[in-house]
């Protein structure tokens, strides 16, 4: 499952989850975090990451801020808003429901 788009909506879920665990992460950090956490199994397509971030920012799930990072460069970091937390819960339960349903199908047939 290299392509995250294969499962609709999982990109938002991954980004939100990463930001919940590691608030104030910048775009590149989110990408590597997904890669590391999935032992290199999942990889966010870079071209889709930023549009997704902008979209979630517009939806009010995350907010962005400019900070100076260790190397002295400015970086744009993201964190969850209250609405984002709620959305994450929603997406998580939706994901669990979906996978449970799929597992059930796999077991019974």
């Amino acid at each position, binding site marked *: 499952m290299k392509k995250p788009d294969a499962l609709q909506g999982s990109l938002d879920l991954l980004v939100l989850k990463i930001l919940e665990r590691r608030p104030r992460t*910048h775009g*590149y950090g989110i990408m590597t975090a997904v890669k590391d956490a999935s032992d290199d199994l999942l990889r966010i397509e*870079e*071209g889709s990451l*930023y549009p997704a971030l*902008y979209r979630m920012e*517009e939806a009010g799930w995350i907010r962005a801020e400019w900070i100076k990072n260790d190397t002295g*460069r400015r*970086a*744009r970091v993201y964190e969850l808003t209250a609405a984002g937390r709620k959305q994450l819960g929603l997406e998580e339960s939706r994901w669990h429901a979906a996978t449970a349903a799929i597992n059930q199908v796999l077991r019974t047939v």
Partner: protein
Amino acid sequence: MSVWTRIVNVFRSDRVNCEIAEEFETHIEEAVAAGRNEREARRALGTYVRHRKEGHQVRVIGWLDSLRADAIFGWRQLWKHKTTSVAAVLSLALGIGACGAAFRLVNALFLRPLPIQNSERLYAVRLDGVTFQGKPFIWDTMSYPVFMKMRAAVAGQAELIAMEPAHRNDITFSSDAEMEKAYVQHVSGWMFAAFGLRPALGRLLTEDDDRVQGAEPYAVISYGYWSSRFGRDPGVIGKSFRMGDDLYRIVGVSDRGFTGTEPGKMPDVFVPTAMNVQGVREAGDGWLRVFVLPRSGIAIEPVRQQMYAVYRAFEQERAKAWTNIPKELLIGYPREKLLLRPAGTGVSQMQDDYRVPLTVLGLLVVLMLLIACANVANLIAARSSARSREMALRISIGSGRLRLAQMILAESAILAGLATVAGALFAFWAAPFVVRSIGHADDPVRLVFGGGWNVLAFGSFLALGTTLLFGLGPAFRASKIKPASALKGGDDPMARRRGMYLVIGAQTAFCFVVLFLSFLFVTTFRRLSERPLGFAPERVLLLNTLKKDNKHVIDWQPLLERIKAQPGVELVALEGWPLLGGMNDNELISMKGAPPTNVSSNFLGISPGWIKTMKIALLDGRDLQAEDARAHAVLVNRAFAQQYFGGRDPVGQWFTTLGFNGTPDRHEIVGWVADVAAKNVHEPMSPAVYLPLHTDALGSSWDSATLVVRTSVTDPSVLTATLRHTVEQSEPELRVGDVETQMELVRAQTIRERLLANLAAFFAVVALLLAAVGLYGVLSYSVLQREREIGVRIALGARLGHVTRIVTAQIFAMVATGALAGCALGLIAARYVQSLLYGVKGSDPITMAAPALVLFAAVLLSALPAVLRATRIDPATMLRAE
């Protein structure tokens, strides 16, 4: 992201884009630092442009951002054609400003609710009847006795409030030498409580102050008067002033917002009605306006019926005592109907006088604005047609049609916005200017211009309305552009021109209406000013004098001698009151013992030498003499002779009037004079009788008289101080009240006509200019568009006449149609304004000739440059240029 941040981001889009770029670059750098190939990383991330677009959209409010872009673009477009843009803004500003000023006037006079409680429930009495001559006549004042009877009849259902129309009065605060003017109003004591007004200082009048005749000389002053006259000194309470024979004490200052119930006038001093002792007693003295305030939940119609019943009974009883009026005139008396009209916005003479004129002015300014809008619409249409290739290109590369329409509308909105701002400034200045020109220097019109929300709303409505009016058409057309055909040069170049021609037709129609109406008003004013008055008003000064003590007998002869001896004085005489000053005494007469006639004559007391002083022609007989006072000799005018003697010389005849004690007075005619305008200059000359004032000893019935002084100076008012001094020196028992020139009174007669004529003429000139400029523009544009076609035609042998025809035929047909439509509109409008006209008929086709001629000349003149240009097209150059 908050809405506010996104709004702010619209106006710093460069910074937003920078941030997106920065984030983009940071990502690449990190990727490179992690050991990736930069080109691979860039390829994986996608193009920057796409990120910028998506990121930008999230960070701003989309429609606002595009609006900002359109506004900037529109501004640049306008800036590119500075001259035409400025001309467009100015002409629109004039139209919008004039509309705004008219609305401010209408609002102040007719729409602004009185600042009192329950103004929506307030009604005023109006009497709708006919004169003895059968002409319709409307009035709104009643006597005190009938008012009190009506009040008692409807007690419990409605409160009735009586208010005298405010008038200027002489009052003195210290000595008689320091006489000053103030607007005084007798009001029911319970008015303040009924209107829910609170005192700003002291107390207000109450019902107890208005019970006993002449017993409670208390006064409340208005907040405005307190500020302007006393500088808001709290010590004003308890101060006294003298008015007439009474000494009044100020007990309070009224509510700040309360400026009376008469838009156009603001009373300074309120006193109880009971203080006008004579007015309270006299059943024939209609001096009070009656307001009705029904209790909540009470229907007004039954109240009106009860009041009417009381009124009829009262008047019928009163008519029984009338013996000098022909019996047949009294059949069915009183014939007038008592009506109640809503009075929440006040009741005033000015409202009645200016209802129709303001409506007409409103119509004129709206037409002017429409003409200006038409010009701007054509201007924008021409510009956007020049840009049709640009538009087509925009559509081809994916611009939405709505966006294109929005772009054109943004340009229109900038024009309208600028014009509205300039127009608001104009209206701010113009409305008070008009009010000043209506008023008299001594008796100014005082109006409250509320700058309230409705003025603001009207302004926004104008701005929006004009934008849509001239922007919607071109915007709609721009959104319909077919790129393929537009890029090829358009498949129907005529379509746009046809739209323009239609606008020109409408413009011509409006212009004709404005011209026609202004022609009517200018003619009316000219006819009125040229109307012979029958006397020479130039260089005449009028001193209105009052006796301090009614019983005192004044010997006028020495006083007249002393005035005549003053330098600059040529002649001097006395009259009961000034000609054209608003005072009248109309009486019915009996010819040689016959029963009284139904045509009343206008009576005026004069001294010997009056007709010479006024330069009135003596037709036959002799002037009055000092001894005539006892012999009851009188002069009559030509209209009198016409009425009663078939125009024959009436000298030696006699007639009677009903005297004071009911016995007939016999008058001998010793001379007749030319007709003199005495009441007003609009009506035909009416029969007049000039009877002798007692010059040796002014009879007790005369407590005031006017000194007429013919001077040798151009501006007789320079003699005011000297003559005032002379009168008061030589006769201490006399007080000089108003001093005015006869010319002022003559001019005051035509204030309304002058105002209408001036404003209408101004609007007509502007409208004509705008329409001419519009026509010139459209014609030039169409010639420019058809240059090639015309060149070909000339090359093929078209003659001058032919070229002229193809250039102008269509548009002239449109202009002619427009003018015809204008004629029809003008005829309708003229019927409405007929009451304002004098000596000119709106329905007369001949009166249309002059405005039509002017319009025709303007059309020819504005068409000339384009036609010349068309005929000078050189086919060789033209074709080579292709």
